[in-house]
C-alpha cells in the first residue's frame, strides 16, 4: 500500500532556499498548469484536460507503472560507474530543502541507530559499533532530481552486510529510513541489497561532515540524490511502503538511475 499525496500540505517553515523556487505555494500547486502548452493540447485533442483530478490520477497511476518498469530494469549486479579521485567535485555541493546552517546537528556521543521491523535483533547501534563494521569505499556520481550531478567519495559499510548482521528478513519489500530532521525515505529491498548501497560514515576518507549527513547517510549510486537520506537515525525493514518526504509531494517513488 502506498501513501501518496499529489497536492500535499507542506510545512511552510521547511520551504526555504531552492525548494522555494521549485515548489509553488499551496494555492498554486498541482501539476496541470502551464497555460500555453495546455492550451495547445486542448486545441489539439478537442477536450479540456486542464480540469483535472482525473488527469492527476492518471499521472499518478503512470508514475506507479514507471516504478514497476524501473524495478524490472534494475539489475542487482550492474554497478554504477566509478571514478578516479581526481574526478571528485570540489567543493561537493550541500543540498537540502533547508539552508546549510539549519542542517541537523547530531551528537555522536549519544547517537544510537534504531533498527526496527522485520529483523531478529532490534538492539540500537552506537557510532563506535557502526564504525567497527567492515569498510567499503566508492567514488560515484550523485545525480539530483533537478538534473545536476556531482562526483563524491563515500566510505562506510554495505547495507546488505548490516542487514545480514541484524538478521533482517531479506524477503521483505522495503527498507524505511528516518532522519534527524524528520526527513523520511522508503526504498525497495533489491536496491537495499545492491553491493554499492552503503551506510556511509565518511566523505573523502574523513568523518562525514554535518553538511553531508553526520553521522550517517545512506549512499545509493543507483538512485537519485533525494533517495539518499542523510542524518539517518532509524531504519525499519517492512512490507508496508511508508512513502517519503519528496515522494509524497509527487516525485517518482522508485527514482532509479
Amino acid at each position, binding site marked *: 500500500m502506498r501513501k501518496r499525496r499529489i497536492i500535499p500540505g507542506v510545512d511552510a517553515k521547511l520551504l526555504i532556499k531552492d525548494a522555494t523556487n521549485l515548489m509553488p505555494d499551496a494555492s498554486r500547486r498541482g501539476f496541470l498548469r*502551464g497555460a500555453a502548452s495546455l492550451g495547445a493540447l486542448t486545441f489539439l485533442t478537442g477536450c479540456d484536460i486542464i480540469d483535472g483530478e482525473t488527469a492527476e490520477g492518471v499521472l499518478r497511476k503512470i508514475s506507479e507503472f514507471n516504478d514497476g518498469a524501473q524495478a524490472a530494469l534494475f539489475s542487482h549486479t550492474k554497478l554504477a560507474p566509478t571514478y578516479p579521485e581526481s574526478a571528485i567535485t570540489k567543493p561537493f555541493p550541500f543540498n537540502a530543502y533547508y539552508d546549510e546552517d539549519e542542517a541537523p546537528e547530531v551528537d555522536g556521543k549519544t547517537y544510537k541507530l534504531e533498527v526496527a521491523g522485520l529483523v531478529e535483533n532490534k538492539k540500537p547501534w552506537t557510532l563506535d559499533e557502526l564504525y567497527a563494521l567492515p569498510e567499503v569505499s566508492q567514488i560515484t556520481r550523485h545525480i539530483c532530481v533537478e538534473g545536476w550531478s556531482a562526483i563524491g567519495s563515500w566510505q562506510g559499510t554495505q547495507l546488505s552486510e548490516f542487514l545480514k548482521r541484524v538478521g533482517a528478513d531479506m524477503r521483505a519489500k522495503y527498507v524505511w529510513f528516518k532522519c534527524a530532521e524528520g526527513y523520511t525515505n522508503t526504498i525497495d529491498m533489491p536496491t537495499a541489497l545492491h553491493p554499492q548501497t552503503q551506510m556511509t560514515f565518511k566523505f573523502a576518507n574523513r568523518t562525514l561532515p554535518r553538511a553531508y549527513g553526520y553521522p550517517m547517510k545512506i549512499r545509493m549510486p543507483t538512485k537519485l540524490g533525494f533517495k539518499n537520506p542523510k542524518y539517518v537515525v532509524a531504519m525499519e525493514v517492512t512490507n508496508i511502503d511508508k512513502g517519503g518526504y519528496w515522494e509524497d509531494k509527487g516525485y*517518482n517513488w522508485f527514482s532509479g538511475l
Partner: protein
Amino acid sequence: MTTDTLTAVDTVETIHPGWVRICHWINAFAVLVMIGSGWQIYNASPLFDFVFPRQIALGNWLAGALLWHFAAMWVLVNNGIVYVTLGIATGRFRRKLFPIRPNEVVADLKAAVTFKLAHDDLSHYNAVQKLLYSGVILAGVVIVLSGLSIWKPVQLQELTALFGGYDTARYVHFLAMAAIVGFLVVHVALALIVPKSLRAMITGR
C-alpha cells in the same frame, strides 16, 4: 471494379494513409507535452543562462513536470516505434524521403524563399521537405536515446557513455529539443501558409 484498380485509385487520391495521420497527431500531442514539461525540468537546473517562462512550461513545478514527461514518453516512444517500423516496412520513407540531393535542396530552398516553390502535388515532397522530415526523424531518435541515457545512467550506462557521459547527454538532449522546436516553427508556419497540406494530414486528401 477489380482490387487492382481500387488500389490504384487509392494511391492516386490518398496523400497520407491512415496510419501516417494517426501517428502524426498522436506524435504532435506527445511532443508538445514532452517539450512543455521538458522546459519546466530544464528550469530546475538550467544548462544555459536563461530559463523558460513559467507560463509556457508544463507541470507547474519540477515534480509535476517529471510526471508529465515520464508519462508522455511512453506515448512518444511507442507511437514512434510504430511510425518508423511502418515507414520502413511500407517503403514510404524510401519513396518519399529519398534520395536527398544537395543541389536539389539548394535549388528548392532558393525557390522557397522567393515564394516560387510549387505545392501542386502534396504527395510529392520537395528536396527541402525531404531534408527537414528526415532530419526531424533523426532528431527524434537522438532525443529518445539521449533521454534514456539521462534517465538511466546506471542501468543503461553504455548508452550514456555513447553520449559522452551523463552531463554531456543533458546537452545533447537539449540541443535535440532545440532542433525539433526549430523544425516545428517552420513546419507549423508552412502548414498555415498552405492550408490544404493541413487538410491532407487530417482527411488524408
